[in-house]
């Protein structure tokens, strides 16, 4: 089944594309996957960090809110969450806003839903990593910060979080790789990112093995880039005395 492959198909002009080739289609999909992943990563990191801190503060209400968030977003499948963001939420908001939103460019709607979905889904995982990072610090660090007269907020900002974030870079890296992989779910609501582009190539060229191989290789390449980048960051931020940090 691999013997009769024809890789020149990617250099053929795509229909209705003003000289664009199928290769250009692939790169358009790749670009959208990267944009989607980066936009979601910003939401995930910011929201996940806030929620992760709330999971450790001595306040029952804040702790309860963040716990409910984590449990809900970890126990509902990603595809269902995406359908909720795309099909359900625009219906449940007040009709005025919902109708105005539904008149926007459909691609924009798909992108917004997918970004929110991936952002808050990944945020729940990052929240747990941030919590684990804070809890892995010796209890004395917090006590020492407070004893020096820092407020709780200052203790978090200047003592606990700078340490915690340096420790959790490796798990954050694997969350980022997961995010790129998970972004393929956006193909189910019609967003033409990389995975969806693979199917579209199959429809137009009838070259299934070539199309899927190209898409798969591109995903692997993106993941390698992310991992290489994070490994570099990890080496920069390594804390001496912690695992792997004996400098």
């Amino acid at each position, binding site marked *: *089944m691999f013997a009769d492959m024809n890789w020149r198909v990617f250099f053929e002009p795509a229909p209705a594309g003003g000289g664009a080739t199928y290769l250009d289609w692939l790169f358009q999909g790749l670009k959208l996957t990267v944009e989607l992943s980066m936009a979601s990563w910003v939401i995930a990191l910011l929201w996940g960090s806030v929620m992760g801190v709330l999971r450790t503060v001595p306040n029952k209400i804040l702790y309860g809110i963040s716990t409910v968030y984590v*449990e*809900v977003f*970890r*126990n*509902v*499948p*990603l*595809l*269902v*969450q995406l*359908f*909720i963001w795309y*099909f*359900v939420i625009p*219906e*449940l908001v*007040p*009709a005025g806003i*919902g109708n105005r939103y539904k008149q926007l460019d459909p691609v924009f709607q798909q992108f917004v839903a997918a970004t929110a979905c991936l952002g808050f889904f990944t945020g729940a995982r990052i929240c747990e990593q941030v919590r684990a990072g804070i809890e892995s610090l010796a209890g004395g660090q917090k006590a020492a910060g407070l004893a020096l007269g820092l407020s709780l907020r200052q203790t978090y900002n200047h003592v606990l979080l700078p340490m915690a974030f340096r420790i959790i870079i490796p798990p954050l890296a694997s969350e980022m*790789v997961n995010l*790129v*992989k*998970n*972004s*393929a*779910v956006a*193909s*189910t609501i019609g967003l033409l990112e990389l*995975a969806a582009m*693979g*199917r579209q190539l199959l429809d137009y060229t009838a070259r*299934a*093995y070539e199309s*899927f191989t190209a*898409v*798969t290789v591109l*995903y*692997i390449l993106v*993941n*390698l880039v992310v991992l290489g980048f994070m490994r570099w960051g990890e080496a920069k931020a390594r804390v001496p005395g912690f695992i792997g940090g004996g400098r």
Partner: protein
Amino acid sequence: MYELDWSSVRPALPFMWEGMKVTLKITLTAMSVGIALGTVIAILRLSKNGALSGLAAGYVNLFRSVPLIMVLLWFSLIVPDLIVRAFNLPRMANVNVTSSMVAFSLFQAAYYAEIIRAGIQSVKAGQMGAAQALGMTYGQAMRLVVLPQAFRNMTPLLLTQTIILFQDTSLVYVAQVRDFFGAATIVGTRDGRIVEMILFAGGVYFLVCFALSSLVKYWQDRLKVGA
């Protein structure tokens, strides 16, 4: 404001239960095959033979760097092709469920293998040494001494992975398989009640997964006390 109307849910329950059976079938198959195959891969990966451990590492890394959706698409392409070539059968209309089960089994095996490898490595090296000193072969020592202890340590992690698998089976949507979530969306589209059906399906997934993960957590705490 949208008026929620849940009246579509009740009459659709038997239909959705048929879908849930498909979901469970894929989950349980992928769990059994995945853990069995994952154990073999983990042992190969820990073997001193460079070729074997390299092969196992390649398998794990390949599956872990490709989106599950792509794996499902690949297998919905390859499995029917293979069946046609191997048995010289005409292209069958419905091998989607089979392809999905194969895809999930092979995909999950890579993830289970990493958990099992960590589990084997968590057993103290002296256990293997003592068993071999008693005259056991490597295979016997692995099967009778190391693996039972490893599995005891990693059962919670294996179960957590299985809960993730249960959630991920909803992605068979891309292979046109009618699982629980697929059935719910079909009813929702038919009755014009997609909002309610998606929310209902999400609620069911949440209850099942939350209950199971709470059980796993409870069990994990008990194991800790026993250790």
